[in-house]
């Protein structure tokens, strides 16, 4: 696990991505705790906002999945628990594969921002707005939470 994470760390130094603004271990002495800053995808209600992700790598990585969370009360999204920042994403759960890496996970999370899935909700109200196909309210409510928590 250690050598693999070290390789990922080295690769992350030269990372260039449109949406990943920063991807760093919290301390270079311990590569099991990472912090990531992502940019909300264009044409999504999250555009023009940045978000922090916390990534914890278990000892059994890559056989088991890292634990990824947004900051509490920062991500209003149908598949994210607003209070805890917990994320519901298939590749972080039953569809995990050891060939995925930290960067791939972060990219999948950015993709999730644009492709919410109301069938596995962690934020029931936002998921319901999608279910009712009320996109106007969906965008406005997200925008409200984003601007309100920014203060």
């Amino acid at each position, binding site marked *: 696990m250690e*050598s*693999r994470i070290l*390789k*990922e760390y080295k690769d992350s130094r030269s990372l260039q991505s449109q949406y990943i603004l920063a991807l760093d271990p919290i301390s270079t002495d311990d590569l099991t705790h990472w912090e990531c800053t992502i940019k909300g995808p264009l044409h999504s209600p999250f555009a023009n906002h940045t978000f922090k992700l916390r990534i914890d790598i278990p000892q*059994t990585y*890559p*056989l*088991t999945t890292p634990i990824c969370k947004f900051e509490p009360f920062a991500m209003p999204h149908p598949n994210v628990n607003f209070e805890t920042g917990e994320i519901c994403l298939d590749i972080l759960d039953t569809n995990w*594969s*050891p*060939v995925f890496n930290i960067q791939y996970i972060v990219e999948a999370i950015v993709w999730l921002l644009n492709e919410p899935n109301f069938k596995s909700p962690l934020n029931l109200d936002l998921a319901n707005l999608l279910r009712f196909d009320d996109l106007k309210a969906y965008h406005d409510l997200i925008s409200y939470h984003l601007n309100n928590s920014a203060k």
Partner: protein
Amino acid sequence: MSCPICLEDLAANDIISELKPCNHKYHLVCIRKWQLDSNQLKCPYCQCKTGKMNLKLNKLNSVVRIVYDTKKSIDDCQICGLKDGKIEFICDECELGYHESCLHDVSNDLGMQTTWRECINCQSEVVHSERNSNMRIIESFKRLSLQDQEEELKEVKVRIQKHVRNALNNYYEAKKITSEQFTEVNKLVSRHLYQISNNRYDDQTHHYDTLAKSRIKMELQRLGYAHV
């Protein structure tokens, strides 16, 4: 090239497993660990269902290719593939079993008679099966292959039952039978159909709709539930 699981090089001296049919390559130790841990035989890279893997190892510049059944449990000999319950040696590292005679054959072929007690995958010394400490892993291999068989069987059952349910629905919708009778006859007829198709779904040989209809008729008459 590197192993997608540990990201280390797939070096010439490593034991490389090439999954079939997708040909994706991993270190044998890495892919086996994942298969055991995740309880599944899908390729981690392309998610295709794999059944076999080619093992590639370099010894004295000769590449030995072994077709290795992924579902094979540890009590099969990794060299001859026979499951005769006479495995004498087991590798503790990669949990593979061998016949003593087969190990001798391979080392003779390679011209390395003195090192016959080596696992063909990781080259570590194999231990006599009676002294093997990996009973837990052996068990999990068995469980893994059993579970896969069970899943396949379940799928077969669902598909066959669909034909039976369709046929029975005609009687149920016409109110000729009750829901309890439906369940009972469904069970009897489905079981019969699994048996005649040898627990496989084979609609080339068996016309399930016709078979279901005639068997249902028979069972209903035998049980006296409906006059048909």
